[in-house]
């Protein structure tokens, strides 16, 4: 099974999910809407054959929900319970937005993203910078892991217990490699004709298919139900 979604649909999904996440769910119906909205990107991740991450998100979300509903309540006091309540609340609150953002970042090719943003007439500055941000999170993680390995090898991973040193040892090499990668990236971008005065054509053809229409309708309905039942009923 292979669903190719239009990047604009994905952006719309992010918009709806972040809006719904900001309003807290108070009744079972609202929780149901929210859980369904969260399940959609997980299903999409499975459809993209990203089983591991889909399973990880699903497990995390389920555990947080089960703990929230069955083991914790407003009266839970004591340090562990109140901490746990805080964690589960935060996970249940923010994870849907995280999952959706992760799905979009991982499955949208940069050229698709740029051509979608161009079609929506977003200024070049925002488009290019945003594309770089999206592309850069995995790079930062990779570079950071490399730095950590190098530090482990020399046995200075804790910086002698000095917090400032700990930050400095990680931050400075990270910045060095990021600056270098940035230079390479700009060279590559210029080769590909980004930032020219002429309108670029794109290999990625954006088509709105049946799946897009279904998802857009579904998310719109979900958001409408959420707002109506939260504020007007």
């Amino acid at each position, binding site marked *: 099974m292979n669903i190719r979604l239009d990047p604009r649909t994905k952006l719309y999904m992010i918009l709806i999910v972040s809006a719904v996440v900001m309003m*807290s769910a108070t009744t079972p119906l609202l929780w149901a809407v929210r859980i369904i909205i969260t399940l959609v990107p997980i299903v999409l991740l499975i459809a993209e054959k990203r089983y591991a991450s889909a399973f990880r998100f699903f497990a995390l979300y389920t555990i947080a929900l089960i703990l929230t509903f069955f083991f914790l309540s407003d009266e839970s006091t004591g340090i562990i319970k109140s901490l746990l309540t*805080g964690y589960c609340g935060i996970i249940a609150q923010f994870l849907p937005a995280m999952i959706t953002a992760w799905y979009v970042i991982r499955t949208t090719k940069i050229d698709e993203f740029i051509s979608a943003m161009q079609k929506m007439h977003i200024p070049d500055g925002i488009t290019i*910078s945003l594309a770089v941000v999206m592309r*850069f999170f995995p790079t930062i993680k990779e570079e950071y892991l490399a730095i950590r390995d190098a530090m482990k090898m020399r046995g200075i991973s804790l910086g002698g217990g000095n917090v400032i040193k700990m930050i400095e040892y990680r931050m400075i090499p990270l910045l060095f490699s990021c600056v270098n990668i940035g230079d390479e990236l700009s060279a590559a*971008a210029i080769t590909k004709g980004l*930032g020219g005065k002429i309108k670029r054509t794109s290999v990625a053809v954006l088509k709105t298919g049946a799946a897009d229409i279904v998802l857009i309708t579904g998310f719109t309905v979900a958001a409408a139900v959420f707002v109506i039942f939260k504020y007007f009923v």
Partner: protein
Amino acid sequence: MANVKGNTSPKKNLGVKDFITVGIFTAIMFVVEFACAMLGYIHPVMVAGLSVLIPLVGCIPMMLFYTKIEKFGMITIMSVLIAIIMFVTGMGYLGAPLIILSGVIADLIAKSGGYKSFKKTVLSNGIFSLWICANYFPVIITADSYRKDLIDGDYSAEYCDNLFGAINYKTIAVLLILCFVFGCIGALIGKAAIKKHFEKAGIV
């Protein structure tokens, strides 16, 4: 001819290289913010501590960013990106005006120093640090309903009491000042760190 002219006057227009620089440093700043915000889960008072932590931890990337700025608009674009990322990660849109406003003002201040004057850079970084307070906006503006939302949303009452004890109408002024002051201090530290590491290596 107009096109050719646009390409040959690098002083005025932002180019691809600038956009990429903005993107990279925004990503780094967001990672810094995210890492610091994790501490907020430990205890709500730490959430208020963000206004000290983020400027101090983020000072080195910010100052490195300032050395790369030559044209108006880069700090503004960064603030817009931060506003977008905050919205996408579920922090809400209430803080967006503050973030973008502080970005534009910081940009103007840095511009008045020609992006070279160190004093103006310190001031500009202080102003730009105010965006951190946007994290608190949902707490302050909608204090009552937000508190109810949090408790309904299964945060413990204890967490809420601590949170609202640390962040409310009275303390926001203090938090804003803290952001500004530590933004300025951060600029000094960042400058020293850059001198120590990057100028020697010839990156700046």
